[in-house]
């Protein structure tokens, strides 16, 4: 992402001038007609293609007037419009029906106009990069460290030698260590493109290599091809070093991906581990329970968007219990009206639940329409952070955590509560349990409800990474059955281990075999594994098996 286009160069040169001007007279920007000289330049932005726009920006910048910074920001944000009537350019912001115009130079209010009276001045990704780079080198001295950080990163990407002096001044002033590190990087990057001596460049390579991340790698590869002699060699060795370490990190990355995929599988399967694993109901409607959970999330978010936007970040916490209740309630209903007539006839449950899944899908389709519905990620679920060289996205991380919590919670319920005790009693020996005064019908209903409810909250999690559409459930049902059976029916630990194993295996196969073949291999693996252990990973042993 380094561009050495003459255009960029020359107009960045002028930023230097601009910068000096800033340092000399840091006084308040005087809003007087001294800017009027820029007026024609600004208005020119409205005409021509992107290349022209780039030239115009450069011209603007050349004027060395700090006021253009705000104009450029507006341009980047797409807030710069031209008034059709007189071809004047304004910063326009939505105000009620129309747009409120402000003069880009004086900042004076220029009244309101309707949408149709003005035209947006379009920018594309390239122009955005250009503007970023220039603004970056402009804001290196901002008082706000975060701004400085952003600026430093922009300059690093640009890697433009012209900003070296600015960088060095900034470095000298810099107090924040994090920012300093990045600035060092940026300086090195810029230096490598400058005409400084090899000695300095070799140090620069060291500095960059020490970052050891993809950006550094990309930069060095570019350098290797661009230069020759000792620098090129040094770059080459550095590249190999980075690549080696990255190769190691890739394995770690795969493990992480595997675990995160595994926990998705776990979430999808764990409800089934109860309805199918514990109760022996071949529950084909399980996927739909998950889907319903996802739709609950959608509804909750819709309501929040409409009435209480400030709640949005908590939408999931509101959705979780609701999803559990809704899916759970449906589950109980299903058990009462359908499943309970079918105990001891697992195959018929397959048939009925299959019919049920068709009905539920169509119901949701009629209710919410067949298209995807938008479920947003709350702030704390978006973005990623770097752990060493692996990027961990927040939503994946929270889903892993969530899956573990759900599992632990379920274990607790089944092992520690009297309800769990009853459940196990009923599923192991219905008659005996009944004779001991356990109200088996209700235990059945509640157990099924529990399984469905868990599926529901799984839906909440899955809504964060996948489509929310009537087909959501179909995508997971098969995998879920695979996981449960692979792990060993009726054994929650099996489900956990099974899910994680399949996830990791899948993710280690994918880079070599590709996504499709990888999945096929996993399925073959399952088939073969079942030959080895006909009752799954965690099979029950002893006489109980035959019983």
């Amino acid at each position, binding site marked *: 992402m380094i561009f050495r286009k003459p255009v960029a160069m020359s107009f960045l040169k002028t930023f230097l001038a601009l910068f000096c001007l800033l340092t000399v007279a840091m006084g308040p920007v005087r809003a007087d007609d001294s800017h009027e000289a820029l007026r024609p330049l600004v208005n020119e932005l409205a005409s021509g293609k992107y290349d022209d726009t780039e030239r115009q920006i450069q011209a603007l910048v050349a004027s060395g007037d700090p006021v253009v910074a705000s104009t450029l920001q507006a341009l980047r944000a797409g807030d710069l419009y031209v008034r059709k009537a007189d071809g004047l350019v304004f910063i326009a912001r939505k105000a009620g029906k129309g747009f409120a115009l402000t003069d880009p130079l004086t900042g004076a209010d220029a009244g309101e106009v309707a949408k149709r009276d003005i035209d947006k001045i379009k920018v594309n990704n390239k122009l955005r990069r250009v503007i970023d780079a220039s603004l970056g080198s402009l804001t290196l001295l901002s008082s706000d460290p975060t701004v400085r950080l952003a600026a430093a990163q922009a300059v690093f990407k640009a890697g433009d030698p012209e900003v070296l002096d600015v960088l060095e001044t900034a470095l000298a002033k810099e107090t924040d260590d994090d920012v300093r590190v990045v600035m060092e990087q940026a300086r090195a990057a810029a230096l490598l493109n400058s005409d400084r001596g090899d000695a300095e460049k070799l140090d620069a390579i060291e500095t960059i290599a020490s970052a050891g991340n993809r950006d550094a790698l990309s930069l060095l590869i570019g350098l290797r091809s661009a230069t020759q002699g000792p620098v090129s060699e040094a770059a080459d060795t550095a590249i190999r070093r980075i690549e080696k370490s990255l190769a190691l990190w890739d394995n770690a990355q795969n493990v992480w991906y595997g675990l995160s995929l595994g926990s998705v599988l776990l979430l999808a399967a764990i409800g089934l581990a109860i309805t*199918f694993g514990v109760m022996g109901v*071949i529950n*084909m409607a399980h996927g739909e329970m998950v889907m319903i959970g996802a739709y609950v999330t959608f509804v909750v978010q819709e309501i929040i968007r409409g009435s209480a936007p400030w709640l949005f970040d908590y939408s999931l916490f509101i959705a979780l219990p609701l999803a559990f209740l809704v899916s759970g309630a449906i589950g109980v209903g299903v058990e009462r009206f*359908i499943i309970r*007539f*079918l105990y*001891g*006839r*697992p*195959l*018929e449950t*397959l*048939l*009925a639940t*299959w*019919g*049920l*899944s*068709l*009905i539920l*899908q*169509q*119901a949701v389709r*009629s209710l919410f329409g067949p298209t995807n519905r938008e479920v947003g990620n709350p702030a704390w679920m978006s973005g990623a952070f770097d752990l060493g060289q692996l990027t961990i996205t927040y939503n994946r991380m929270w889903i892993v955590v969530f899956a573990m919590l759900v599992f632990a919670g379920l274990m607790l319920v089944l092992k520690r509560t009297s309800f769990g005790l009853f459940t196990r009693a009923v599923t192991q020996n219905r008659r005996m349990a009944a004779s001991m005064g356990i109200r088996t019908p209700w235990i059945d209903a509640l157990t099924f409800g529990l399984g469905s409810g868990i599926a529901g909250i799984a839906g909440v999690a899955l809504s964060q990474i996948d489509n929310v559409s009537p087909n959501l459930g*179909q995508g997971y049902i*098969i995998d879920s*059955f*695979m996981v449960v*059976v692979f792990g060993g*029916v009726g054994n929650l630990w099996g489900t956990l281990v099974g899910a994680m194993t399949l996830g990791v295996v899948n993710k280690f196969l994918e880079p070599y075999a590709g996504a*499709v*073949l990888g*999945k*096929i291999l996993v*399925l*073959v693996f*399952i*088939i073969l594994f*079942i*030959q*080895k252990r*006909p*009752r*799954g990973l965690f099979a029950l042993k002893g006489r109980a098996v*035959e019983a």
Partner: protein
Amino acid sequence: MMTSYLFRTLDAKAGVFVALLLAVTLLVPVLNLAVPEGSFFHVPTYAVTLMGKYLTYALLALSVDLVWGYCGILSLGHGAFFALGGYAMGMYLMRQIGTRGVYGDPVLPDFMVFLNWKELPWYWYGFDMAWFAFLMVLVVPGVLAFVFGWFAFRSRVTGVYLSIITQALTYALLLAFFRNDMGFGGNNGLTDFKDILGFNVQEDTTRAGLFVASGLAVIVCFLICRFVTRSKLGKVLVAVRDAESRTRFLGYRVEHYKLFVWVLSAMMAGIAGALYVPQVGIINPGEFAPANSIEVVIWVAVGGRGTLVGAVLGAVLVNFSKTWFTAALPDVWLFALGALFVVVTLFLPKGIIGTIGERYTALRDRRASARREAGVDAEPQPQPAE
């Protein structure tokens, strides 16, 4: 000897059924070809192909009923054998296109041409010969079933475990055939067939012919199933279904019996697929979809598990209502279909034929028990587990 075999295979009930099937098989084409358009009795070609499709489905259902109804092997992956048979036929039909493809390549099918394949992959050899292709229709599903069954049954994979790995099998094949690198046309599958054994597949006469072929196939396979299930082997199969380990203690090698019926059933499914493809005019990986296989099981369950006739009936009935619903109430037909399944399960637990049969025997028992000496009480028995 032969006579006793015949007697074993064809009792009165089966006779009626076969006669009826035969009648339909022969009557429909006549009504389609001989009777003029306008006439009330004219059967449009549309209906012929449609019923032809039903018949192939019926055959598929028959094959599932044989393993599930009589041997308790619940296959959630029979669609795989069906599709493989279909692909074998499809490959033959593709080769028949010859230079009539859009690129006019004498050897390569169109999809290979525009994906820049240079020559025909080895596994396509021989499919230009009808006899070889038709042989493959039996061999490919048969061999897959044999290999899969050999391992699964020997290591005593049973119940849901077996069901799920059959599902894994068809799912894996689904993904595999989706890959364009496999050389089976990827998602588009094989289509745009021109002619079969020299007859244009779009001719009414050809369609009628295929219909008759399907009808006969169903009849023959039905008789084979009868022959198998009514034999001592059939009794052993049922024994395996109800009490597998007990059968072992009688000295029967359960895995051999399972393997035999499993392979037989897979071949039937293959034939069904092979007859299906030329009638619907396309074979694509979608046929491997686990959902399809599950639906087949449902046809059988609706008709009545372990009654052969029920399987045929269920397949026709469910698919007929599907056709009807999708046209009559396109927006909500899934409700109708889903409801059908639920209702059947709840109120006709043994399926249509099964329930009828039960009523009948119940009646007979009541008569019998009147005569039966007192003091002997038949205690209720639990349902045989799957």
